[in-house]
């Protein structure tokens, strides 16, 4: 079947099998390898991307279900060589260890902050419930999300 959708701002049209999962479309057809296939069972969140601005696990979405919609992956976050504020915060707060869960964590965090720009620490922890870090590096990940929220506030007040 033919699917048309927007990936990181680029309109695409590709011939795919109906059974193709969004994560395989992104990795194998679009060549975007940030979204990782981790558990492949909707648990770990390493494949998280934004679909119409909302976090979804791309291992459990058919590319056919995303037709006509807008997908953003970690590759689509930086603009003009500037990292996205959440990416900057993950770097500044060392919100990663091995890095495998990081693209999914960043996308889930962006989705969380879009829905709740001023989360408490508890809300961040609950908001990242769908993302697992096998290094158990949660503490700095939570700090990074809180720092990104504070930075967004500072930019608004500045």
């Amino acid at each position, binding site marked *: *079947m033919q699917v048309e959708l927007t990936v990181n701002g680029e309109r695409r049209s590709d011939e795919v*099998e*109906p*059974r*193709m*999962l969004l994560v*395989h479309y992104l990795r194998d057809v679009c060549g975007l390898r940030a979204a990782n296939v981790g558990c*492949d*069972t*909707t*648990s770990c*969140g390493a494949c*998280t991307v934004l*679909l119409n601005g*909302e*976090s*979804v*696990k791309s291992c*459990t*979405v*058919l590319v*056919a*279900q995303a037709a006509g919609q807008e997908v953003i992956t970690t590759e689509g976050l930086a603009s003009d060589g500037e990292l996205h504020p959440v990416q900057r915060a993950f770097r500044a707060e060392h919100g990663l260890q091995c890095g495998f869960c990081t693209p999914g964590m960043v996308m*889930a965090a962006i*989705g*969380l902050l879009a829905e709740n720009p001023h989360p408490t620490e508890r809300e961040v922890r609950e*908001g990242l*419930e*769908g*993302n697992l870090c096998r290094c158990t590096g949660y503490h700095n990940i939570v700090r990074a999300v809180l720092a990104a929220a504070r930075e967004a506030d500072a930019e608004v007040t500045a």
Partner: protein
Amino acid sequence: MIPAPFDYVQAESAAHAIALLAEHGDDAKLLAGGHSLLPMMKLRLAAPEVLIDIARVPELAGITRDGDELVIGAATRHADLAGSALVRAQAPLLAHAASLVGDPQIRHRGTIGGSLAHADPAADLPMALVALGGSVQLSGPDGARAVAADDFFTGFFETALEPGELLTAVRVPCRPDAVWGYQKFVRRANDWAIVGVATIGGRIALANMGPVPLRARAAEDALAAGASPAEAARLAAEGTSPGEDIHADRGYREHLARVLTRRALDGEHS
């Protein structure tokens, strides 16, 4: 893991979806959020030849009030249910249950109709619907009918849906002022309840205490006869038939049902 091959059809309307179901029969499955069906297809526990996508059928979307009931389109996602001001005001138990399904990503995709039709006895929304005394609207080639929550869940992952029928909407009574409680006992984040309890206005529903979401009738009867919540909760496991798994044996689940029912009757929300 990749599902077995299938044809994908997007339904334009509920009538179109029903016609497609009639055309393809047992070879077809309805797809909404896909967060129960796609994992089963990836594990090859399901291998439909045709998927009929109903997620974008306009008449299956939306939440409205009809007299003393809320009418919730079957394709309403858990996130929309949890965030709806109308649901939070009129059926706060349902909004709370929706906010506990899976995790944020799952709530962005999964739908109330899909969760109810899937009928996992450990899931949140089937238990919530039974507690609220809601009903589902089913449409098929022979017309539409309503089925009460107590009659909808007929067995382990089985419902009153006939082949060829589509769950179009969910109706729940508006209960803005009723005292309610909700307890979901899990070992891990993003998991199903080992045991769940939802209570509202003298009704008590249990998750994962049998093949379907159950009413704790003995405890309800005791409450109606004037027993205290603590006394009634002692009867919460009467008439249940919980399974056993790595998380809990039968006795432990019965114990949880009693403890969680007492907490829920005290109005606690987990």
